[in-house]
C-alpha cells in the first residue's frame, strides 16, 4: 500500500515542447485595453494589439455574430502572434479554432465542408443537463482479474456517505477507469452513471491520520451526506461541430475520437441549429460564439470566399479572424487581382488591422523573450549582434539561431552564449538571402538548371507568360 502511494505522489513536471508562439500568454493589454510595451510575451504592434483587444471584447460579449477581421502585414510582423494572443486572452472557455488556409484542400472532404466544419467548431454551446451521479467515499474495493491475464475482470466497490452504505458491481470499462484514477479505499469519488466517468474529489478527512505517504497535492474533503445517488445539474461545453458529429453517425460518440467524420448533411446541421435555438429559448443552453482564425487566407480560392460571404451572414456564425501577408495579388481560382488576394466584396465586410514592421528595439525585446523561452542565457553583446542579424535578414532566421547558438555554446561547456557562438552559427547556417545569392552564382552546377530560362516560358501557353510576369511577386501555385 505504502509503496503504491509513493509511486502515485511522485511529482510529474509537465514538459511542454516549445513552439514558435509558446511564449505568448495574452495580448498584453491593461484594463482599459491600452497596450503595454512589453507584456505577456507581446512586444510592440501597439495599435494592432489594441485593435485585437477590442475584437476580443466583442467576442466576449458574444452579441455580434459573423464579423470578419483581417490582420494584414508583411511577413514576420506578428500576425499569428496576435491571433495566438487573442486565443490566450479569451481563455479556454471560448472556442478558438485555428486553421491554415491550405488546410481546406483535403482529398477527403470538399472545401466548403472543411470550412463549415471549422466555422461550427468555433461555436460553443453550454448545455445544462441533469444527470444521475453516485457520490461517496470508497470503503472497500476489490478487483479480481483472471489468472491468465486476459478475459473478464470482476470488480466490487463499497461506497458510503454519512448516512448509508451500498455495494456496487463494476463493469469492465469502469474498472479500467478506477485503475487509471488509482482509486483506493478512503477516496471520495463521483461516478457519472450514464457515461461511466469516474472522478476523484480527494481523500476523506476521516482517513487523514492514516499512516501513508500522501503528497502535498492530496486534497482532503468531507464525506458526502445523504443519499449515494443524486441528480445533479452539470454543464457541458460542446461545440456545434461535436453535436453534428454525434448526431450524424450511427456510432455516435466514437466518431469524435476516431476523427473520421466525413461529410455532414446540411439537413442534420439545420436540425441541430433549430434544436439549439429551441434550447436557448427554454434556457437550457447558452450559445458561446468563439473565434475562427484562418492563417494564410490568400490560399483560399474564390469558391471559399463566396461561401464565407454567405456563411458570415448566418446568425450562428463566429467571429472570423484572417491573416495574410500578401499585397495586391491574384485571387486564387481567378485571373483577377485584388488587395490581399481577397475579393473586394468580402474585403468590404471586414475590418482590417495592420501590423507594421518591428523597430530594432522591439526586435531585441522579442529575441530576449525567445531566449528566455528556449532556456538560453545570452550575453548582451551576442544579443546585439543577433538583433543586427535579425534586422538585416529576418526575425525568424535570428530566432532559429538562438537554440543553435545555445547548442554550440554548450559544446564548449560555457553557460552563456557569446558573440563567437553567434558568429559561428551565422556561418554554419545560411539565411534566405545568402542562400539565394549562392544559388544565383552557382546556378549552372545544380541539376535541371537549363530548364528555367527557356522551357519554363513555353510550358505556360499563350497569355500565361504575361500572367507570370504579373504575378512574379507572389509565389502562388498556378491554377490548372
Amino acid at each position, binding site marked *: 500500500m505504502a509503496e503504491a502511494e509513493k509511486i502515485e505522489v511522485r511529482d510529474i513536471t509537465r514538459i511542454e515542447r516549445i513552439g514558435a508562439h509558446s511564449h505568448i500568454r495574452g495580448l498584453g493589454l491593461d484594463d482599459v485595453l491600452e497596450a503595454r510595451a512589453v507584456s505577456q510575451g507581446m512586444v510592440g504592434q501597439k495599435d494592432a494589439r489594441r485593435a485585437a483587444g477590442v475584437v476580443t471584447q466583442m467576442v466576449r460579449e458574444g452579441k455580434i455574430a459573423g464579423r470578419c477581421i483581417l490582420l494584414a502585414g508583411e511577413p514576420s510582423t506578428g500576425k499569428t502572434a496576435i491571433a495566438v494572443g487573442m486565443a490566450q486572452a479569451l481563455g479556454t472557455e471560448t472556442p478558438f479554432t485555428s486553421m491554415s488556409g491550405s488546410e481546406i484542400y483535403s482529398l477527403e472532404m470538399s472545401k466548403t465542408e472543411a470550412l463549415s466544419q471549422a466555422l461550427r467548431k468555433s461555436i460553443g454551446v453550454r448545455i445544462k*443537463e441533469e444527470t444521475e451521479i*453516485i457520490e461517496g467515499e470508497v470503503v472497500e474495493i476489490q478487483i479480481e482479474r483472471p489468472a491468465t491475464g486476459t478475459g473478464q475482470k470482476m470488480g466490487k466497490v463499497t461506497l458510503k456517505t454519512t448516512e*448509508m*452504505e451500498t455495494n*456496487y458491481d463494476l463493469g469492465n470499462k469502469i474498472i479500467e477507469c478506477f485503475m487509471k484514477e488509482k482509486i483506493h479505499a478512503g477516496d471520495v469519488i463521483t*461516478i457519472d452513471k450514464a457515461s461511466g466517468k469516474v472522478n476523484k474529489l480527494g481523500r476523506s478527512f476521516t482517513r487523514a491520520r492514516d499512516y501513508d505517504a500522501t503528497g502535498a497535492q492530496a486534497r482532503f474533503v468531507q464525506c458526502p451526506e445523504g443519499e449515494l445517488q443524486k441528480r445533479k445539474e452539470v454543464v457541458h461545453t460542446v461545440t456545434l461541430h461535436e453535436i453534428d458529429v454525434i448526431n450524424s453517425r450511427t456510432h455516435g460518440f466514437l466518431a469524435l475520437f476516431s476523427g473520421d467524420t466525413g461529410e455532414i448533411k446540411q439537413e442534420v446541421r439545420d436540425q441541430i441549429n433549430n434544436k439549439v435555438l429551441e434550447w436557448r429559448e427554454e434556457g437550457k443552453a447558452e450559445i458561446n460564439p468563439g473565434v475562427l482564425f484562418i492563417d494564410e487566407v490568400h490560399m483560399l480560392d474564390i469558391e471559399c470566399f463566396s461561401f464565407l460571404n454567405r456563411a458570415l451572414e448566418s446568425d450562428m456564425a463566429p467571429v472570423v479572424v484572417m491573416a495574410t501577408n500578401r499585397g495586391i495579388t491574384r485571387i486564387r481560382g481567378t485571373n483577377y487581382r485584388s488587395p490581399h488576394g481577397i475579393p473586394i466584396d468580402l474585403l468590404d465586410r471586414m475590418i482590417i488591422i495592420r501590423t507594421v514592421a518591428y523597430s530594432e528595439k522591439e526586435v531585441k525585446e522579442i529575441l530576449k523573450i525567445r531566449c528566455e523561452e528556449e532556456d538560453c542565457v545570452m550575453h548582451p553583446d551576442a544579443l546585439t549582434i543577433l538583433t543586427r542579424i535579425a534586422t538585416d535578414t529576418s526575425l525568424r532566421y535570428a530566432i532559429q539561431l538562438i537554440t543553435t547558438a545555445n547548442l554550440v555554446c554548450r559544446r564548449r561547456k560555457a553557460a552563456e552564449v557569446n558573440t563567437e557562438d553567434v558568429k559561428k552559427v551565422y556561418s554554419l547556417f545560411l539565411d534566405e538571402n545568402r542562400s539565394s545569392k549562392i544559388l544565383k552564382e552557382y546556378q549552372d552546377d545544380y541539376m535541371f538548371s537549363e530548364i528555367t530560362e527557356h522551357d519554363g516560358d513555353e510550358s505556360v501557353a499563350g497569355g500565361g507568360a504575361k500572367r507570370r510576369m504579373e504575378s512574379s511577386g507572389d509565389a502562388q501555385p498556378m491554377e490548372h
Partner: protein
Amino acid sequence: MSYQNWINYLKSAEKNSIVSGRIRKVLYKFADGQQMSEEYNMDTGIVQRRAWRKCKQLMGEPEWEIELGEEPRQLNWSANKTNGAGDSDAMAGAEFTVRESNTAPLLTKRITKKNIEWRIRNMPYPLDVYNVKAQAEKRAIVVSTSNKKYYKVIPVPELDRCGVPPQQSSITVHHQFNTLIITYSKPDIICEMEAQVLMLLKDVETETSMDDLLKGLMAK
C-alpha cells in the same frame, strides 16, 4: 390543495390505450415532450405500474423511469439494468458500467385501494433500526437507519399532485422476511383524484392487443 393542474395536464396529453389480458395500458404523450405510461388492473381499477420517459437533451434514446410498480425482473443479471427491458441477450457480457449489487436494498412502490406501499427488500436489520419520517419541507418520506447503512428520500408524487404535504400520522412501518414495508394511508383527496383520472380514461378509445386475438385463435 387541488389536483386540477394534474387533471388538466393529463387532459392535454395525446392518449393511447390498449388492453392486454386483464390489464389496460395507457400511453400519454404530453405536449412538452414527456411521455407517461400506466397500467391499470381492469378488475380493481388500480394503477399497477407507471413509468415516465423524460426527454433527453443532447442525444440518444431517453430511458423509462419507473415511478410505480416493479421493474421487469431479468433472468440474466448481467444485462444493463438501467437500460430497462429489451436488449438483454446481446449484451450478456460486462457491458454495464456500474450497478448496485444484487444484495443491495431495493425499493419498490405499490398502490392499493387504501394505501401507498413501499417495500424495501434486502433489509436484514431489525425494526428498531429504522427511522421513517415524513418531511413536509422536502415533500418526501425519509428513511434512515441508526447503523448508517441505508438512507433514502422517497418522494411522493401523488401527494405533490394534490398539493398535500406528507403526514407522519399516516405512516405505518412493518418489517418481515428481510423486507421493510412502509404503508401510507391515502388521504381522501388522492382517492378522489384517482377516480377523476379513471373517468377521464373512460373516454379514451381502447384497442385490443394483437396478442390476445392470437391467443384466442390458438385456443380454437
